[in-house]
């Protein structure tokens, strides 16, 4: 086998980062051209994890797609479920009982919390912080996963929501456990911020790195904390007020610079806002049924039509587009994945930066390859 010489004098060095690089968060590849350590070209390559998600969902009944949505963004199965069932509920005009709406908000905000905690830990790990912040974050994430396990039977692939409500009711003990956890989460956030918020190295590495200008972010369709870090006030919980989000008081943190530090801080601040929502939801949750008994889960045949259900997943706007031809399975099933769309502008953020920075820029995008490739 002949290998080309590495690089002659003055030539560019082409490095293929991934698909088995420790910092690409899965099977993702970046074709990077380097001038010394500076990035002059970067091509994101994905598709290694493609598994025909949309076609499989079109072949099965409406109910059968719910477990598949768990596998999209496998860190946030609860919000994936919600996005899908919201689309089906719009399509078939199904009402959701009050208590189910509250449970949905509770599990969604817990999901947001554990996703952001894990992301921040991984981002610092990418920055070289040798696992300490990651393990701190994972300690809290474990507590949330334990709650999911006792609620749904699974830690990550929860398969919990159904159109018309949720699969099983939560017990009063479970709600007490959530209350206890929510009570201690602010302490974790304080501890975490004390650890690294004002760290000199962290600020020097992230401030001014990987800037995403406001206009570019809007044009590229970037959503979620990344978009808000660039200063655009766009949170679907506020815009659509889906579910019962209009009943809670919470703020949407906005950045100004759109750099990695802003994206990092967006996650930290959103975790605090999630705790606020959780406190309100746990205070107000009513008794009652958790699923509309008239909904035909198995043999659902919506009328001919189309619907787009979207939610604010922890990573951005997660949308499901469904077209019904009146049969038992969707004619067209399409996912609008926040990760993949946020990833498309990776090169714009990385050009001219150091190779070490591409890793943290990628980390700050917050991708899960299960959703990018589907």
């Amino acid at each position, binding site marked *: *086998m002949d*290998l080309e010489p*590495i690089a002659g004098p003055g030539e560019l*060095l*082409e*490095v293929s980062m991934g698909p088995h*690089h*420790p*910092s690409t968060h899965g099977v993702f590849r970046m074709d990077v051209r*380097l001038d010394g*350590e500076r990035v002059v070209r970067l091509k994101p390559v994905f598709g290694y994890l493609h598994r025909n998600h949309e076609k499989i969902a079109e072949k099965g009944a409406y109910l059968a797609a719910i477990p598949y949505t768990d596998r999209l963004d496998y860190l946030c199965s609860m919000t994936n479920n919600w996005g899908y069932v919201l689309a089906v509920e719009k399509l078939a005009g199904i009402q959701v009982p009050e208590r189910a709406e509250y449970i949905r908000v509770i599990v969604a905000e817990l999901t947001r919390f554990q996703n952001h905690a894990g992301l921040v830990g991984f981002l*610092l*790990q*990418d*920055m*070289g*912080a*040798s*696992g*300490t912040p*990651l*393990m*701190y974050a994972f*300690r809290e994430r474990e507590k949330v996963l334990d709650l999911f396990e006792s609620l749904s039977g699974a830690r990550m692939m929860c398969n919990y929501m159904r159109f018309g409500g949720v699969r099983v009711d939560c017990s009063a003990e479970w709600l007490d456990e959530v209350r206890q956890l929510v009570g201690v989460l602010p302490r974790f956030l304080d501890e975490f911020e004390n650890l*690294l*918020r*004002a*760290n*000199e*190295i*962290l*600020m*020097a*590495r992230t*401030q*001014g790195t990987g800037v995403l200008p406001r206009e570019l972010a809007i044009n590229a369709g970037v959503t979620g904390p990344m978009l808000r870090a660039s200063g655009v*006030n766009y*949170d679907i919980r*506020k815009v659509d007020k889906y579910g019962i989000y209009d009943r809670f008081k919470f*703020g*949407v*943190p*906005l*950045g*100004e*610079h759109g750099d990695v*530090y*802003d994206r990092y*801080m967006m996650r930290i*601040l959103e975790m605090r806002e999630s705790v606020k929502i959780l406190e309100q939801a746990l205070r107000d949750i009513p008794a009652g049924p958790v699923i509309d008994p008239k909904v035909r889960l198995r043999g659902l045949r919506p009328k001919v039509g189309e619907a787009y259900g979207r939610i604010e997943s922890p990573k951005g706007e997660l949308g499901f587009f469904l077209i019904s031809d009146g049969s038992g399975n969707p004619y067209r099933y399409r996912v609008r994945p926040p990760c993949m769309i946020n990833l498309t502008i990776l090169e714009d953020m990385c050009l001219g930066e*150091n*190779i*070490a*920075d591409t*890793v943290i820029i990628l980390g700050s995008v917050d991708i899960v390859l299960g959703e990018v490739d589907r």
Partner: protein
Amino acid sequence: MISPGAVDQVFVTLKDWIVFHTPAPLQTLVSIVIEVATIIVVFAALFALATVFERKGLGRMQNRYGPNRVGPFGVFQPIADAVKSLTKEDVVPRAADHVVHYLAPLVLVGVVFLTYAVLPVGRNMTAVNLDAGVLYFFAVGAATELAIFMAGWSSHNKYSLLGAMRAIAQMVSYEIPLILSSVAVIMIAGTLSTVKIVELQARYSNGLAHWYVFTPWGLAGFILFMIAATAETNRSPFDLPEGESEIISGYFIEYSGFKFALFFLAEYLEMFAVSGLGITLFLGGWSSPVSFLAWIPSWLWFFGKLLALLFAFIWVRGTVPRLRMDQLMNFAWKFMLPMTLVTILSAGIWHFLTVAVVGPKPLGGVIRWLVCALVIFVPYITLARVLERGRRIEKRVYRFAE
């Protein structure tokens, strides 16, 4: 009753006894072999201990246990690791330069072991008492860069090449503050011999040792020395040549099995060696800080200090993120270098502020201390201000939309 002095000198006495009982023509050879074997065995054992120590320490900082399966508290983990690395396949990339690829870890370990020749690990316990000991240490220690570049280049891997490039740039840059921060000690001590430097620090007045770290220039020098040593040994936060999350593991990415273990060994040995030199230059080598603890054997003091510094390395590794290449270089040339020059200036002033100038002790001593501290502190503040001006790093306040 065994006197403390006998315990202190037990290893020296043992060696003398063995050498005395060998035939005269072989005595020099036996003496050398004993010394070399002791260094290799003791520091390799310390390496084994340090790996467990580091993994346990990091584990505890990270809310986990660390290795605890092999033996009580996992202390036999290094044995398991050694067996594993010995039995693993030794993969050499087809495109690699086989000879250089093979030699690189050997050169690295060999060179690092050479530096131990001049480290005084106890009273009368120095392998070679060179007149130019410190110079020898730096001269030999600089050869590790060669071995690292050999490894990075011969692997024929882009990541390892990037790692080797980073390693050379970083180690050459930090060599300068490392050497310059020890110049102040050499100036005051008036000798390059490591043995003499320690002996000069092993004197006591009012029960307190004359360690150089107790002087303002020595304290600043020690801090600068340890920062440069961290960079020199590629430890976090200066572990860019390895940069696990960026360039996977840098220059030794293509090494497996025991060659990989040798790189690991060399990294730790380098850390011990440079910490040992720091102890020798600033922390009084094998001497005790206060005279009433002088009965503790000298080698215990040395290894105690070594473990303390090792813990500091581990602590830093468990706490901070990694720097970026340009920030690392800026730090070396814009901050470390001027500050080491300032410590040299301060040491010079210290030398000339004798009792005749500042008056008798204790007041004279205090004045001398304060003046020299001011000579370091004022440039430090000025430099920090100047460097701060070019950067735009601030704590930010965020607004919330309702």
